[in-house]
């Protein structure tokens, strides 16, 4: 149904411009060397290769996985490349000196960087639907230079390369695809369709499987790299919430789904046990035991895949709950942190239980964003928005989230981390209060070093950024009594794909990003004509006391300004364009009646309608016409999430919400294709 990525490449060359570059956040980056996009088309292989091979930094680790922070080595020094999505630049940090030594402006908002085997740096430009390839200079103070830029399906995010460094993998969040590129030529090897909202990707040590995290859905995808089919297998990350009050079959130990699947990491269990004693007490046992055989030498264990996430209990949407957004549950909180441990061979999560003792701890890592490991110590480091900290976890556990060893506070908005295993140095990037924190992990008393970066946001950009911080604020009793943040249900300003139980009946989370302009009234019931009132009611429903004044203004600014996903900018096949055009005609045709309520496709008629969607638990029968903007990526559909696909929804709601049954399958397909462009 969706557009097909044609694989054509858009190219950029080094412009060599030195000057200030406006960032997405709006602002200036003094002294940044511009490696921005251009439309210069040049031969592929020549343009993407290194101009000066064998000079400059080389990668510092063997993880071969993208992150907002990547480490490189140059003449014994450690440098960090930091992807700053607000200033749209890559900051080069000298870790030993603790300062920024170079700044490279890139062509969009960078999400992740990955250092290739030859020292080139791949960067996903999330808002430009592109991957940019950059080359380092000879010196640490040299800015990166752009070699080429490749068009990608909408919203490229995660990066990884195979163990043989031959293949570069790129996830595309909004287009829900994984693209594989040949590293030497950067030609496309294959592309596979994935479930919604893929984010990070990594490849197992054998190069046989790629593991992909998903922002929503409580799932992981495994892509087979061994055959040409590249089969995509689904791994459920759902887990049972178990608490002292839980009883088997009692309803409390039910399966929970998950969200916030941004990050991934892999680490092999570390044998921390001492060698077995030669003489020891033979335990006494009542029964005779067989004689012990000498143990064969143990093979090296496979690296496990670790997926930091949040498990969620949205309540039973089929029943009116006694409270909003999940019911009163005396057990595991409705949002609880978890690190799912995936058996890479079985392709199955080992973490099937979320344990709680009935308490409700505060300042939990419920907005995990990035992860890194320290293999020699068996440690997992997760950056957490909301609490603005990095948590150090023991990766050997069944759920490392239970095994928090320490917590390192960092400036607001930590979205990237890299760990140098050999030196025990962690480099953390904070996006909201832009800055790099360098932590000596092995030195207890060494205070972290904070490094400011070169960026001054404009006033409007700052206002948006302040609102973003408020949006991700956890443990704020003004917002919710249990400490959840706005971003808990609206990751990236979008929606969690969940249908929540409420006293009014089931309510699916609505996407906010790019949708809050001209879509009043707000909420499924359309009770509020202005956003402040609706937000205030949401806080009340969450048990919060409410925001006032500047804090509320900041939040509303962000909610109204959070950008929607970038559209595909790749060429679409002409037949697809024809199909979309036909779908638009059908949509606007009175016989179908779609545009009567959904004015212009994205608009709304500000009216409640009974479209026969009343669920058994509903207290209302009429619902506000929702905006169809970005509808292709917000499944499931209807206020109770009853339809998984647009076509299901169109067919099932015939004559109650438009008329489509008289249409041919080809027309329905065309209509759905048009809806996906909204």
């Amino acid at each position, binding site marked *: 149904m969706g557009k097909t990525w044609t694989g054509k490449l858009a190219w950029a060359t080094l412009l060599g411009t030195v000057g200030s570059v406006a960032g997405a956040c709006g602002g200036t980056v003094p002294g940044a060397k511009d490696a921005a996009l251009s439309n210069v088309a040049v031969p592929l292989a020549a343009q993407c290769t290194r101009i000066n091979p064998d000079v400059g930094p080389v990668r510092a680790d063997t993880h071969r996985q993208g992150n907002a922070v990547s480490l490189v080595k140059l003449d014994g020094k450690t440098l960090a490349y930091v992807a700053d999505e607000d200033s749209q630049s890559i900051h080069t940090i000298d870790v030993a000196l603790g300062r920024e030594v170079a700044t490279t402006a890139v062509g969009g908002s960078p999400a992740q960087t990955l250092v290739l085997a030859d020292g080139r740096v791949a960067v996903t430009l999330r808002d430009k639907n592109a991957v940019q390839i950059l080359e380092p200079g000879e010196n640490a103070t040299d800015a990166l230079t752009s070699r080429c830029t490749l068009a990608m399906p909408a919203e490229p995010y995660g990066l990884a390369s195979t163990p043989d460094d031959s293949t570069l993998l790129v996830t595309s969040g909004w287009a829900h695809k994984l693209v594989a590129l040949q590293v030497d030529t950067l030609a496309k090897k294959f592309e596979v369709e994935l479930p919604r909202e893929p984010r990070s990707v990594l490849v197992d040590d054998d190069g046989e499987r790629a593991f992909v995290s998903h922002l929503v859905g409580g799932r992981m995808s495994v892509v087979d790299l061994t055959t040409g089919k590249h089969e995509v297998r689904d791994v459920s990350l759902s887990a049972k919430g178990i608490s002292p009050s839980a009883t088997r079959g009692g309803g409390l130990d039910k399966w929970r789904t998950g969200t916030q699947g941004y990050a991934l990491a892999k680490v092999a269990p570390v044998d*921390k046990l001492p060698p077995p004693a030669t003489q020891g007490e033979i335990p006494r046992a009542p029964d005779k035991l067989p004689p012990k055989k000498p143990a064969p030498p143990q093979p090296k264990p496979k690296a496990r895949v670790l997926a930091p996430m949040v498990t969620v209990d949205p309540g039973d949407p089929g029943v009116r709950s006694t*409270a909003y957004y999940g019911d009163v549950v005396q057990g595991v909180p409705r949002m609880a942190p978890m690190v799912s441990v995936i058996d890479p061979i079985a392709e199955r999560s080992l973490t099937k239980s979320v344990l709680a003792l009935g308490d409700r701890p505060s300042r939990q890592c419920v907005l995990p964003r990035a992860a890194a490991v320290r293999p020699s110590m068996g440690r997992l480091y997760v950056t957490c928005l909301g609490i603005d900290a990095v948590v150090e976890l023991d990766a050997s556990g*069944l759920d490392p989230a239970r095994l928090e060893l320490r*917590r*390192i506070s960092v400036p607001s908005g930590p979205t990237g981390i890299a760990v140098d295993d050999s030196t025990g140095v962690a480099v953390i990037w904070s996006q909201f209060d832009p800055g790099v924190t360098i932590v000596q992990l092995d030195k207890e008393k060494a205070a972290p070093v904070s490094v400011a970066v070169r960026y001054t*946001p404009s006033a409007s950009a700052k206002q948006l950024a302040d609102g973003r911080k408020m949006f991700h*604020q956890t443990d704020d009793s003004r917002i919710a009594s249990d400490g959840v943040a706005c971003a808990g249900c609206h990751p990236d300003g979008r929606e969690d794909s969940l249908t929540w139980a409420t006293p009014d009946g089931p309510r699916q989370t609505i996407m906010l990003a790019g949708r809050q302009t001209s879509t009043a009234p707000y909420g499924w019931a359309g009770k509020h004509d202005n956003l402040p009132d609706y937000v205030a009611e949401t806080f009340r429903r969450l048990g919060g006391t409410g925001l006032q004044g500047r804090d509320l203004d900041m939040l509303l600014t962000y909610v109204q300004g959070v950008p929607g996903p970038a559209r595909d900018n790749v060429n679409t096949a002409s037949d697809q364009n024809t199909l979309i055009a036909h779908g638009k005609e059908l949509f606007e045709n009175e016989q179908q009646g779609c545009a009567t309520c959904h004015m212009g496709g994205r608009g709304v008629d500000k009216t409640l309608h009974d479209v026969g969607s009343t669920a058994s638990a509903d207290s209302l029968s009429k619902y506000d016409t929702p905006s169809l903007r970005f509808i292709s990526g917000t499944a499931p559909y209807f206020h109770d999430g009853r339809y998984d696909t647009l076509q299901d929804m169109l067919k099932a709601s015939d004559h109650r919400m438009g008329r489509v049954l008289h249409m041919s399958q080809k027309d329905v397909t065309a209509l759905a294709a048009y809806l996906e462009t909204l």
Partner: protein
Amino acid sequence: MIRRSALVAGIALTVGGCAAEPAKAPQTAPQPGVTTQTAGANSQAINAPLTPVVVPAEPPTMAAFARRLAMVIDGTRPPVRTFPLNLASLPQATVHPAIDAKQAAKLDKSKLAEDPDIVVVAAAGYARSYMLSLSFNDLTKITYGRIRMQGTYGPSDGWFGDGYGKTMSAYATCGENLTEVAPVHMESVLVGDASVKYTVMDGILDRQTCRILTVSRSTIEAKPLLPRGILYGFRACQTSCSDGEELTILFPRSSASAAGALGGNADRAAGSFSKVAFPIQKGGGGAFLARISKRDATQWQLKSVPKSTVMPVPFSADPLTLNAAFSSMEVGVEVSQAQGDESPVALVYTDVDPESLPPLLPASSPAIFSGPTIPTLPSLLDSRR
């Protein structure tokens, strides 16, 4: 002082940030090379109290109020210390299965001997025929114990008498005209200085004679999982160890516990002492988490100390913790074995320093304790303190 300076430095850090607040003065770009030593604390964090707040809510008010009560924030979980656990070093034992009523009915009472440890004493007065007090003959053989007796009492039919302590009460009916028997399951622990002896007995209550007859009895010496005890474990097989093992963990009475397993069930039993068991198998795993009051932990530990020993400092003497005797500690065990793992990966964790647990063990701790210790960072690094 450290925290204050960190806060100041944290504020200084935010200058020049895109999202820094508040911004009364124009933002200026930081000078290249500016380096500040700071904990990087989020000085702008909202510090509103996280207590349930009663505000008007829509329907129903009481439900909303109940929700707020249920969402009381209990504070930040303290960090934990983890200790690698070598399951292979733990004792392995075959534990006989419990018997049910059908099996009990088929037993030949004449071939069974009276249990040497348990004495049955009927209650006095009107309860004489159904309330039995069970006590142990030799109190040096038991620290904590519990017994379950299956039978019928009133409208209920099931296991009764999950008492604990050195004397236990159970409901059952005795009388010369009663010929049927009731299955009995008894578990006890004897806390020693470096191990815990776990005894499990399955038998029957001969209602005619009001005696407990032993069908099977096992004693297993569980080994400590933490440097100073508290948690003890052994590997248990049911009928044959080739059919799979369970990790069984014994620890003091817990105020709350939760356990889960992948590939089987996690069983937990509470009472005067706690027991958790879950399967150990490739492709599976299990975990448990429990909260133990420090008072119970202290009492458990002191059971192993000879009376002649000078009493160690209990938790209650901890000057840093107000009402330390009433505070609690969390303990847990995690076991997992992926398909590619030759042996299970297991660890024990706790949120207190095990070295603070009384009593002091000899310097030569078991080898399984000698894993790396987790350094304690200064509170500067820990925003939750």
